[in-house]
C-alpha cells in the first residue's frame, strides 16, 4: 500500500518502528498532492520546502519514533485556523495577502504532538456555505465525481482526506461544515461538543456555534486527533476545564445494550431514497451488533434552519466588522474613512458573506431585535431542551448526515435557500452545542457517491459517539473504498 493511503495509526506504527521517516511520509503526500490536486484543488497553499524542513526537524529530534501521538504526521489545516507565519485568507479576497502572526490553540497542540503543518485547505469564504463554491479562490471538486461539490464549508479538508492528500485535516463546524463535507466525500468528520476544543485562533463566523474538529480516514484516527485537540484553554473563556479521556482506549467496547435514538423528524419525505435506505441499513447493522433502537422526537427540528440563520448571521455581522482595511488585510482607499470602509468591504467580501452580514445586521436592529434575535435565542433553548429530553431515553442519536449526496457544481448557487437546506440535519447539533460524527455508510449506485451516517451524543460524551461509530465502521467495509483519481 502506498504511504499516502495509510491512516494515522498505520503510519504511526511505521514511524515508531523506524520503517518510515517523517520526511518520507511528507514527501509521499507531496507527491500525491502533486499528482491529484490539480484536479481537486483541495489545497490553497502549500510550501513543500517548509513542510520537509518541519519533517527533517522531527526526524532529527527522534520525535517520530517516540510516543508522541502525531510525531511525524503531516496534517492539513482549513484556511480559517491561524498557523504562525502561514497565510490565513478564510478564502476571502479581504484577507488575500494576510499572514498569521500567531498559532491557534489547536495548532500549538498539533505542534506539541509532533505533527507537521502541511498546508491550507479550501473552504467557503469565512466558512459560509455548504459546497465550497463560495471560495474566492475557486471551487474544490469532489474526489468521487469531479463535476460535483465536496460539500462545505470545509470542502478542501474533506476532499484532501478522502483523496489521500492528507492523513488528517482540521475543519470547523458552525452548522455542519465538518460533518456534511465528510459525508459527501466519504470520510470521517467529527464535531466535538461546544467548549471541548478551544476556538482561540479560529477566525470566528458565529462564536456561539463554531467548533474545530478533525477529518480522518477512520474513527480510530478521529479519536486520536480529538485526544490531541481537546482540553481547556485559558485563552478561550468558553472552553471547558474538564479532563480529556483517552478516546482510543474505549473505542472497542462495543454497542451491546446501548440505546440508539431515531428522531422521527429526521426521516422525512423528500429525502434521497438511496440515502434513506443506506441509513436504515446502518441502523439495522447496529441492532445486529447488539444496540437497542428507540423512537424519539425532536419536536422543534423544523425551526432549526430559521433559528440558525438569525443567530449565526447576527454574530457574524459583528465578527466580520473587524475587516475594515485599517489594521490588516486588503484596503481600498476612499475619500474618507467611511468611504474606505465601504469600498474595502464592498470589494473584499463575496456575495454570500455580504448577504449574511446584511441579514445579521437586520436581525439585531432596533425594533427587530425582539422579533428576530431574541425570539431565535428562545427557540434555540427549546431545541437544546429537545435533545436533553431525548437523551433521557437514549445514549446516542443516529440520523442521516445530509438529506442528499454530493450535488453538481452550480446546481444550487442561484438559490441560497436551497443551499441552506443542505444543513438541515446538522444545524440543530450546533444550536444545542452537542457532539456528532459523520462516517460513511454506503454509496449511491450511479453515480457512485458516498452517503454519510450521523451519530450524535450527549454534551462531552464523544467517547460513546466514537465507540458507536467505530463499531459500525469495523463491521462494514465502507472505509476501504477509495475514489479512483
Amino acid at each position: 500500500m502506498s504511504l499516502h493511503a495509510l491512516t494515522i495509526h498505520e503510519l504511526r506504527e511505521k514511524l515508531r518502528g523506524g520503517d518510515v521517516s517523517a520526511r518520507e511520509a511528507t514527501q509521499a503526500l507531496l507527491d500525491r498532492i502533486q499528482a491529484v490536486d490539480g484536479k481537486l484543488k483541495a489545497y490553497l497553499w502549500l510550501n513543500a520546502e517548509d513542510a520537509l524542513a518541519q519533517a527533517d526537524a522531527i526526524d532529527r529530534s527522534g520525535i517520530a519514533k517516540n510516543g508522541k501521538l502525531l510525531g511525524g504526521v503531516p496534517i492539513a489545516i482549513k484556511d480559517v485556523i491561524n498557523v504562525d507565519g502561514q497565510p490565513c485568507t478564510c478564502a476571502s479576497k479581504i484577507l488575500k495577502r494576510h499572514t498569521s502572526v500567531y498559532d491557534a490553540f489547536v495548532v500549538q497542540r498539533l505542534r506539541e504532538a509532533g505533527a507537521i503543518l502541511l498546508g491550507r485547505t479550501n473552504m467557503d469564504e469565512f466558512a459560509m456555505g455548504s459546497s465550497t463554491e463560495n471560495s474566492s479562490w475557486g471551487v474544490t471538486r469532489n474526489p468521487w465525481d469531479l463535476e460535483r461539490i465536496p460539500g462545505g464549508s470545509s470542502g478542501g479538508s474533506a476532499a484532501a482526506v478522502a483523496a489521500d492528500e492528507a492523513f488528517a485535516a482540521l475543519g470547523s463546524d458552525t452548522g455542519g461544515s465538518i460533518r456534511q463535507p465528510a459525508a459527501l466525500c466519504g470520510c470521517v468528520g467529527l464535531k466535538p461538543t461546544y467548549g471541548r476544543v478551544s476556538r482561540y485562533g479560529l477566525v470566528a463566523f458565529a462564536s456561539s456555534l463554531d467548533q474545530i474538529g478533525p477529518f480522518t480516514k477512520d474513527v480510530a484516527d478521529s479519536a486520536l486527533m480529538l485526544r490531541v485537540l481537546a482540553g481547556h484553554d485559558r485563552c478561550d473563556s468558553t472552553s471547558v476545564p474538564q479532563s480529556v479521556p483517552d478516546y482510543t482506549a474505549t473505542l472497542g467496547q462495543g454497542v451491546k445494550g446501548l440505546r440508539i435514538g431515531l428522531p422521527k423528524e429526521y426521516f422525512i419525505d423528500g429525502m434521497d431514497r438511496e440515502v434513506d435506505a443506506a441509513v436504515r441499513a446502518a441502523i439495522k447493522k447496529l441492532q445486529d451488533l447488539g444496540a437497542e433502537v428507540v423512537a424519539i422526537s425532536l419536536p422543534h427540528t423544523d425551526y432549526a434552519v430559521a433559528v440558525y440563520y438569525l443567530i449565526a448571521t447576527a454574530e457574524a455581522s459583528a465578527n466580520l466588522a473587524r475587516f475594515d482595511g485599517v489594521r490588516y488585510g486588503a484596503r481600498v482607499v476612499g475619500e474618507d474613512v467611511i468611504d474606505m470602509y465601504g469600498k474595502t468591504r464592498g470589494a473584499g467580501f463575496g456575495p454570500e458573506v455580504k448577504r449574511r452580514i446584511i441579514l445579521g445586521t437586520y436581525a439585531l436592529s432596533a425594533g427587530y431585535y425582539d422579533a428576530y434575535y431574541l425570539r431565535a435565542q428562545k427557540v434555540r433553548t427549546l431545541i437544546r431542551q429537545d435533545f436533553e429530553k431525548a437523551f433521557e431515553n437514549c445514549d446516542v442519536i443516529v440520523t442521516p448526515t445530509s438529506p442528499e449526496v454530493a450535488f453538481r457544481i452550480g446546481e444550487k448557487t442561484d438559490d441560497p435557500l436551497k443551499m441552506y437546506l443542505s444543513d438541515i440535519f446538522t444545524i440543530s447539533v450546533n444550536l444545542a452545542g452537542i457532539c456528532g460524527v459523520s462516517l460513511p455508510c454506503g454509496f449511491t449506485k450511479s453515480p457512485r457517491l458516498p452517503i454519510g451516517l450521523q451519530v450524535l451524543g450527549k454534551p462531552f460524551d464523544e467517547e460513546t459517539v466514537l465507540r458507536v461509530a467505530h463499531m459500525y465502521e469495523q463491521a462494514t467495509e465502507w472505509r476501504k473504498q477509495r475514489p479512483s483519481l
Partner: protein
Amino acid sequence: MQYEAVIGLEVHVQLKTKSKMFCGCATEFGAEPNTHVCPVCLGYPGVLPVMNEDAVRKTILTGLMIGSDVARFSKWDRKNYFYPDMPKNYQISQYDLPLCVRGAVEIKLEDGQTKKIGVTRAHLEEDVAKNLHFETTSGVDFNRAGTPLMEIVSEPDMRTAEDAFAYLTALKEILISGGISDCDMEKGQLRCDSNVSVRPVGQKAFGEKVEIKNMNTISGVRRALAYEIERQKAALQKGEKVSQETRRWDDATGKTSVMRTKEYAHDYRYFPEPDLMPVVVSEDMIAEMRKLLPELPEAKRQRFVKQYGLPEYDAGVLVASATLAAFYERAAERSKNPKAISNWVTTELLGKLAEAKKTIDESPVKPEQLAELVSLIESGQISGKIGKEVFAEMFGSGKGASMVVKEKGMVQVSDAGSLEGFVEEAIARNPKSVADFRAGNEAAINFLKGQVMKLSKGKANPQLVGEILLRKLEGG
C-alpha cells in the same frame, strides 16, 4: 422668570490595573505608539477576549463605595459601530445587566450643607484607541485600546456648575482613595461628558438637553457648564428655543460651539457577547471586597481633625489625595506633634513638590524622615529656621534629617557656657542698643538677640539666648 439648570454627568474612568481588560498587554501611559499591543487588542482574526478579574473587582469595590447594588449576575454585550479607534468595530461593554446599579455620591455645598447626587449605574467596558491626525494622513495608536474603562452615569440631580464641580471632585476622591484609578484627567484617566438643560423653576419636565464634550479638567467642566447654562437661559429669555445638540467646549475661548446639530439615532445593535461567560459575583467575593473598603475622604477628614487636632482646612488639604493622606499619617504616627507634621506637609513639602513637578509618591523626603526632622526641632536640637534649611537639603539629596544636621554641623547650641561668649560679644559691640534697652526700650533686646544668632551662625538656641541676654542686661 427664574430658571434652573438640570445636569447629569457621564464619567469614564480608566482603572488602575496592571493589564488590559481582555488581554495581557500593559496599561502604561505614554509609551511609544503601538508598543503595548497584541493580536487580541488589535482585533486580529481569530482572537478571543479573556476577562481581567482585577477590573471586575475594582468596579465592585467602586459600587460598594458609592452604595450601589452590586449585581450577583452580570454579563457582557457587544456595542456595534464602525470607527478606526475600535479594533473590532464593536466594543465589549455592558448593556442591560451592569455590574453596579444605583448609588450616590455625597457633595458638600457652599453653605456647608451636603447633598446626594444619585448614580444610575456603573459598568465596565474596554477603552478605544487614539486617533492621531497628521498633515495628509491619520494614524491610530492602539496602546490605549482595551484599557479597562468604567462608565459611571449620574442621575440628573445637579442644578449648578458648582454641583457638578463638587460631584466630580468627590467622585475623584472616592476613586483615588479606593485605589480604583489615578484619575489624572491630563492622561485621560478620567473623562467627563455633561448633559445640561434649563427649565423655569417649578416646571417638572426637563428642557431640551445639550451634551457638552471636550472638557479636560474638572474646573473646565465647571466653566463649560456655567457658560452653557447662561447661554441657554439667555436663549429662553429671548423666547428662542434651545435645540437638542452636542456642543464642544473650547477652553481657550471659554465658549461652547455646535459639534453635531442632529442627534443621530445611533443603533448600536447590542447583543450578548458570545465569547465571554456571564460574570457571577459570589457573596464571598462581596465580603472580600467589603474588607477592602477604604475610609471615605469626608470621614477621614473628620478623623484627622479629631485624632490629630488639625484645623478643618488643613485636614481637607491632606485628604484630597489618598496618597497624601497616607503619607501624612505615616509621619504623624511617628511624631509627638502631628500638628507640626501637618504644617510641614501642607506648606514646605507640597511647595517643594510643586516646584519640582513631582507627585507625593515621588517625594525624596519620606514620612519617617519628616517625622525625624520634626522631632529634632521639638527636642530643641535645631531651630525651626535651621529646620527649613535641613528640609531643603533633605529634599535635594534624599538624606535623613540627623545625617544632614550632623554633616552640616547644624546642631543647635544650647550650652550656656558657649552662648555666654556670643552674648558678651554682642553686648560689647552694640552699646547703643544696650543703652536703649536700659532706657526702657524693650524691643532693643530683639536686635541684640539677632546679633547673637548671627554670631552663632544661626545655631544658638533662641530661647536660651533670650534668657542669658536678659540676665546679663538686667544684672549688669
